[in-house]
């Protein structure tokens, strides 16, 4: 019994010893939900953070009152990431907590800088920063992008970001990209990372290249993918290209295909198959996509439909090859031809990928009736 009591006492002491002695109250924390990074005019790194307001104002606004935002926005600038975080600690009246970040937004100009890979690594290796945050590259100022977004659905910005981006990703409008994945790919030996492409739309009505018209109370738009090469932004894909990218990468369950004034729902039968043939002096990329019509009512020309999808995939891959970025995962397949990493790195994948021939094969099967 005495030993049991001693064991219980030790067990009770343990939680008191480790961290719980100095509890961090929620009210004392500034939970950053969105971080935006820009390069300011004087060359410094501009960091903007959005944190929830705590108190009566926040509660009132959180219930949907339009009398003000439920969130506070802090902006600082410094020469480096660590310096900017330090400045942010000074600017914020509560302790900065990065463990609940939902989204990290980077301006296109900053993402295209040669120093960006090092910055991305520094961000990903920040202690207690939630690396599963969505990674967005925006067309213009990241701060303006951040300020254009506020709670529209529900009461919490974090819930809205999660729901909205999950919905867009499931539809294939954006890639399912998070900071950790982007960082791993940028440091990895295979393909290139992708991010979500965003921009601010001033006009309420938007007419896209595919003649879509949209009305939305939100100023922020999440449409398309940002492609990287060697850890730096190189180009953006529009929604239709992003859907194809997601199809090739096996990230989407359906493909809505605009064709002859109609929208046709297609479904991948199996994940797209990628095979790379390496000869002495040439590389051939083989891409095989098997699709199925989701509705049996389609009575159009399936041969022309297949040719349309095939041409679009060929244009997308050719465009990416010209930019030198491989977001499709061909590199992972090609690396299988090599026994060691040094051998693979010496092969010079990116240069060979630019000059590679590509064979795209698309098959379409009819919808199966239940």
């Amino acid at each position: 019994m005495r030993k049991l009591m001693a064991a219980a006492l030790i067990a009770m002491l343990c939680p008191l010893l480790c961290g719980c002695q100095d509890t961090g109250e929620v009210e004392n924390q500034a939970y950053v939900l969105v971080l935006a990074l820009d390069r300011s005019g004087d060359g410094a790194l501009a960091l903007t953070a959005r944190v929830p307001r705590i108190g009566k104002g926040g509660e009132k606004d959180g219930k949907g009152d339009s009398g003000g935002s439920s969130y506070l926005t802090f902006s600082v600038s410094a020469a480096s990431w660590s310096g900017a975080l330090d400045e942010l600690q000074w600017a914020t009246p509560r302790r900065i907590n990065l463990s609940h970040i939902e989204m990290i937004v980077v301006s296109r100009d900053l993402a295209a800088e040669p120093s960006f890979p090092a910055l991305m690594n520094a961000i990903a290796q920040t202690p207690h920063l939630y690396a599963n945050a969505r990674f967005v590259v925006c067309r213009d100022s990241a701060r303006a992008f951040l300020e254009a977004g506020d709670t529209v659905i529900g009461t919490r910005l974090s819930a809205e970001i999660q729901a909205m981006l999950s919905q867009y990703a499931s539809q294939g409008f954006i890639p399912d990209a998070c900071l950790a994945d982007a960082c791993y790919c940028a440091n990895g030996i295979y393909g290139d990372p992708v991010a979500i492409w965003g921009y601010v739309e001033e006009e309420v009505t938007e007419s896209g290249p595919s003649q879509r018209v949209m009305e939305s109370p939100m100023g922020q738009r999440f449409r398309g993918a940002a492609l990287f090469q060697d850890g730096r932004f190189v180009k953006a894909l529009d929604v239709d290209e992003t859907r194809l990218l997601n199809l090739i990468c096996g990230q989407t369950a359906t493909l809505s295909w605009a064709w002859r004034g109609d929208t046709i729902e297609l479904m991948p039968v199996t994940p797209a198959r990628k095979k790379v043939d390496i000869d002495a002096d040439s590389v051939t990329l083989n891409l095989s996509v098997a699709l199925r019509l989701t509705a049996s009512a389609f009575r159009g020309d399936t041969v022309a439909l297949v040719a349309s999808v095939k041409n679009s995939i060929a244009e997308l891959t050719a465009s990416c090859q010209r930019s030198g970025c491989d977001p499709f995962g061909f590199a992972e397949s090609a690396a299988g031809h090599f026994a060691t990493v040094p051998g693979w790195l010496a092969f010079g994948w990116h240069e060979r990928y630019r000059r590679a021939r590509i064979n795209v094969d698309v098959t379409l099967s009819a919808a199966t009736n239940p």
Partner: protein
Amino acid sequence: MKLSISRDAALPAAFVAAVTRIFIDLALDGGPVHNGVWIAALLGALPVLPYLVCLDMVGVGKCRYATVGRLLAGLLLAATALDGARIVSVVLRASGFLVLDPVSPFMLVLPVVLAALWCTCRNGDAIGYAAMLWRRAFPALMLVVMILQWRHYRPQWLRPWLGNGWGEIAGEAIRTAGCYVPATSVLLICRHDDETGKRPFTVAWIALASAVASLLLVFRLMMTPSGTNDMAWITRLDALLTNGRAPLYLQLPMIVAFFVGLMHLLACECFAAAALLQRLIPRLNGRVCAGIVILICAVLPFVRSFRSMLDRAMPWLFIAAALPVALAALSQFHFNGGKRSCES
């Protein structure tokens, strides 16, 4: 109090300690993780198997050549205590990563050190049978982890199969062999209670441990792509515990598996070191031995250059331990015909 452990309890303790030690060393503590580490985990077991056969034959206290026995016990004591300190330093860094507010390192170390002291004072059988339970619970926990992570595993990331080549694999294999020395030192001091009954086959257990560690490494490699740049220790830990992508509420099974595995490893090594100390100085009480070993494990992580010194010694550890073990086993075989251990 005499520190002792039965052979039936020592084997699961050594099994769990070996799996955890190899996995921690190759996936986290040994620098960049490259594609060939799972092969290194398998190859590292090859020289260890004859070492374990010899270890099974020898005891410490009553060897014909007492000097060899004492040398062996002293060497294993030093290796095991230093390795225990290394595990404490891993716990220290990992806890510091997970605790949201800055906490004094002393406060981070104290709970785990107290727990290890308590485990050691409960004697070897408690540690061994706890490891036996963990050996059954761990696969169930890993199954949950794998189901949660299944979508993120990418078999393509295992290629190129040989990572940085055979040279690096051989280096890792030698390090891995060194990992077995502290993890299996508990086998040296175990009691051979039932010599006539069916004895568990030590070599088969440790071969299985290397296969399990290798399998865990394969799954770890499928979580992140092989990198050209060395990721920081903290990033490797993040990739190990959360895959960098798991939502916060899904990280718990991985964190539980990691820290409970570390606790079993630490308890096993602290007990083995304390028991070896008692064999060398029989007058010492077991609790005093446990206190001395735990104190060493708690203080050394704070000594500057401790880790770099241990890293330099690691490739030589197996050779340093294997020579006296082989010598002691040969002497036993010569005088006892290899039928009895020194202690029996």
